[in-house]
């Protein structure tokens, strides 16, 4: 079990990386009035066939050869459904995969969002050959971090340069606080 939504996001984004994606888009949207938290992860990786999608919710199905179980998607699905939400997967082979999950925001069984900034930070820092677009929205206000924009500014200066990494981390944390005003999610 992954005890935070942000750890599930990290896990699902790693599927995109394994699928050879060059761009992974991660959206986290909170709407207090509608009492819903949605997560969308889309990538331009190798995608899945209809048959694979139909089996991917089965924990005993995986395409990897290093072990026999694939728990990531079942974890996310269960975490969403126990809050009255749902999870869906759309995929086009050789083109894209989109995962949507929704959670009942105030549901007692909803796991906390957790340290989402750390999840995004580690994804960006440890996968510098891949681009990420991260969007965080709370009640209509949002901010985004697009590594393609960072690259444009930085040229060949890598993200793991201390000054740059520090900037990325602070950008994620400060803007999140500005958007959700420190609301505990």
């Amino acid at each position, binding site marked *: *079990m*992954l005890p935070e939504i942000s*750890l599930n996001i*990290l*896990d699902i984004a*790693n599927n995109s*990386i*394994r699928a050879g994606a060059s761009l992974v888009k991660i959206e986290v949207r909170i709407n207090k009035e509608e009492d819903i938290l949605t997560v969308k992860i889309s990538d331009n990786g190798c995608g899945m066939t209809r048959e694979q999608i139909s089996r991917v919710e089965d924990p005993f199905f995986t395409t*990897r050869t*290093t*072990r026999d179980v*694939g*728990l*990531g998607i079942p*974890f996310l699905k269960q975490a969403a459904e126990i809050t009255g939400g749902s999870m869906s997967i759309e995929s086009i082979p050789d083109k894209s995969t989109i995962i949507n999950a929704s959670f009942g925001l105030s549901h007692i069984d909803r796991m906390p969002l957790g*340290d989402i900034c*750390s*999840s995004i*930070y*580690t994804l960006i*820092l*440890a*996968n510098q050959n891949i681009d990420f677009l991260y969007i965080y929205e709370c009640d209509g206000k949002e*901010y985004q971090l697009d590594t393609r*924009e*960072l690259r444009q*500014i*930085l*040229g*060949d*200066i*890598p993200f*793991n*340069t*201390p*000054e*740059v*990494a*520090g*900037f990325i981390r*602070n*950008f994620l944390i*400060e*803007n999140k606080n*500005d958007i959700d005003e420190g609301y505990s999610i």
Partner: protein
Amino acid sequence: MKSLEELRAIRESMQAQMGLRNEEGNQTRIVVGMATCGIASGARPVLTALSDIVQEKGLTNVMVTQTGCIGLCQYEPIVEVVEPGKDKVTYIKMTPEKALEVIDQHIVRGQVVSKYTISEMME
């Protein structure tokens, strides 16, 4: 709101230092397993700690990166150290604290921290 303007200033101040970076072939790679098994066992704080300390110490020839599941789920979080021309060292059941020890002993001083390696811990 923080904007990307600040990043432009960082770039300006850094441009002078470029060119000092090592060629990729000379780089030590520190690889953290980040599949479901790794994440569930606490790989995220390990990866964050490693990446922070490498920046802090200015270890420009070290690259912290990630991989998927290598099939040793029960020993996660797993950290592999791959130094050019040397055998790969696999550390298991890592924590942020142990990871810092690996940086200090192994990466900086060149002494493998045997007590955390897979060969030692499986005995």
